[in-house]
């Protein structure tokens, strides 16, 4: 029986089987049109309720501060939280290896059909909605701190630094994290 870190898991969903873990990340990965974050939020917070909105934002930022694809790090965290190393491996497999099997053969096909106007039009339509979906997800993630003007300023600075000024993520994190922890985090505790 895998270890159950009850204190952390109790707030949301106390029991998650390995099969559910695998299914969850397969579901996230195959619906991740235009970036995984919006779909990870939808599945983990709204559908399965394994995380609250705040927990999701915390995990996501932690994943962002570490090297490697963000959604992979989040999968490792959640897998490890419910089933230790085995859980991390199962979540990773669902997230990465499942789409590999499906999408790599399509890569060859794309070389032939990628230039078709119809294919390009469909991708354009998907990308437009993906942008809106990402915006909505960012707004949802800002929700827990919406009454704190200092938190809103930090959100705006992170947005401008990475989105408008195109500064490296690492630089923005190193500059903003200490300020945010001192101003926003202290008050929350």
């Amino acid at each position: 029986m895998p270890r159950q870190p009850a204190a952390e898991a109790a707030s949301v969903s106390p029991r998650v089987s390995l099969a559910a873990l695998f299914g969850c990340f397969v579901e996230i990965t195959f619906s991740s049109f235009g970036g995984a974050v919006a779909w990870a939020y939808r599945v983990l917070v709204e559908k399965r309720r394994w995380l609250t909105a705040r927990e999701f934002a915390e995990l996501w930022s932690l994943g962002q501060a570490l090297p490697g694809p963000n959604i992979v790090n989040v999968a490792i965290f959640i897998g490890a939280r419910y089933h230790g190393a085995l859980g991390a491996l199962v979540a990773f497999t669902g997230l990465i290896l499942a789409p590999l099997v499906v999408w790599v053969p399509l890569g060859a096909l794309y070389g032939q059909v990628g230039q078709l106007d119809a294919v390009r039009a469909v991708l354009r339509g998907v990308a437009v909605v993906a942008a809106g979906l990402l915006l909505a997800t960012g707004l949802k993630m800002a929700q827990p701190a919406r009454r704190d003007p200092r938190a809103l300023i930090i959100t705006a600075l992170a947005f401008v630094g990475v989105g408008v000024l195109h500064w490296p993520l690492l630089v923005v994190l190193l500059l903003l994290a200490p300020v945010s922890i001192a101003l926003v985090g202290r008050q929350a505790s």
Partner: protein
Amino acid sequence: MTVRVLLDLILVFAPLSLVAVGGVMVVLPDIHRQVVEVHGWLTDAQFADLFALARAAPGPNVLLVSLIGWQAAGWAGALVATLAMCGPSAVVAYVAARLWRRFRDAPWRRPVQAGMVPISAGLVLATALVVAGAVETTPLGYLVVALTVVLVLRTRLHPLLLMAGAAALALAGWL
């Protein structure tokens, strides 16, 4: 020959895995240099096509690395490149997850977690801006972006329905 290529794939992607803070897109220029200029696994045009596909296909962006590995050395290449890109950082994440749990009652953890929340939201909004900026569309397209935001925040409509609708509009030449 193939073993040599597989080894090269590991040597290219495993180090990048450990410096890719923020994800694959951060090290994209390095990937392009190694894959196209140094090793010649792909031409510039092939790289651009695979990049477009990896962005469009549902799945993590790391799919780009899988496709590069596949071009270089078939299925074995796809698997090796993907594991080289994700493996080292996944081990780091696992160690971090264990440490994070060990310190769950530490007095500094609560403020650190709470302090990261507003940054995270800002970074996701920045990603949205980058995605929106990369789309070549009509003014109606921006209306669809705005409509999507409202519908996702206010209703439980499945985003795939919106995507299907937008794809239909684009096929009709309106987006």
